[in-house]
């Protein structure tokens, strides 16, 4: 598979893989962590139909000023408890989450966020994106400092 502009995130949790996977696919859990710091993700405005073709819609609400950030995505692959892929309808961004059991109560989550706007669909672009854009960003930020 050709690589695109990808961002990678990974984190290890002290919890069984099934539970971590459930947190990512159950709105009752997602509502507690989907919004980053200072941002809520109300349960009653969330749809998580975790099956291929199912809707994944959320609204993040800024606690300070009430501004809203809606996101509409569709699940592409749902393979409990190891793989979850969805694509955002409005940005074309694809998010692939992999869950690895490091032990009975230890799970590593790897998230690959692929930025695939229309401009990326050109074959010459797909062929070229082989290294981490993230590393490049860090490098440039270092130059600017």
């Amino acid at each position, binding site marked *: 598979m050709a690589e*695109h*502009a990808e*961002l990678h*995130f*990974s*984190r*290890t*949790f*002290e*919890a069984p893989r099934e*539970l*971590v996977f459930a*947190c990512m696919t159950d709105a009752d*859990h997602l509502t*507690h*962590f*989907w*919004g*980053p*710091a*200072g*941002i809520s993700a109300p349960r009653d405005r969330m749809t998580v139909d975790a099956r291929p073709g199912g809707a994944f819609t959320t609204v*993040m609400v*800024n606690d*300070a000023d009430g*501004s809203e*950030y*809606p*996101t509409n995505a569709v699940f592409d692959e749902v393979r409990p408890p190891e793989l979850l892929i969805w694509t955002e309808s*409005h*940005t*074309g961004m694809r998010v692939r989450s992999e869950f690895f059991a490091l032990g009975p*109560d230890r799970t*590593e*989550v*790897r*998230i690959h*966020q692929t*930025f695939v*706007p*229309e*401009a*990326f669909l*050109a074959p*010459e*672009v797909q062929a*070229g*994106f*082989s*290294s981490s*854009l*993230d590393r*490049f*960003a860090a*490098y*440039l*930020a270092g*130059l*600017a400092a």
Partner: protein
Amino acid sequence: MVNYGSMTNQTDATLNASFAALADPTRRAIVSRLARGDATVTELAAPFAMSLPGISKHLKVLERSGLISRRRDAQFRPCHLEAGALDGALDWITTNRRLWDERLDKLDTLLADLQPTKKRSGPARG
């Protein structure tokens, strides 16, 4: 305050063009070189096993994306990295990294709450 709106709204054409331009390793190397100062096509081509027309093609892509500019008047037309041109792309990356960092922090707390009998080991970052 991080602007989370910028990543949930329609991706704008400028950001698309920036990312597309940066999708190529040669173009990323050119941008890195220009971050240290202006350079002519010949100077830019030197580290690559690539013909001048080959490099020129990459420069045209970078120019169209607005990441670099070239002087029309000077004989050697030095290339110049546009200050701030990368800001949109860098902001997008920073915002997304922070979004997921903070989400995963909260998920770590939630998982500890869901397993009250377990000893909390604190966030382990991979």
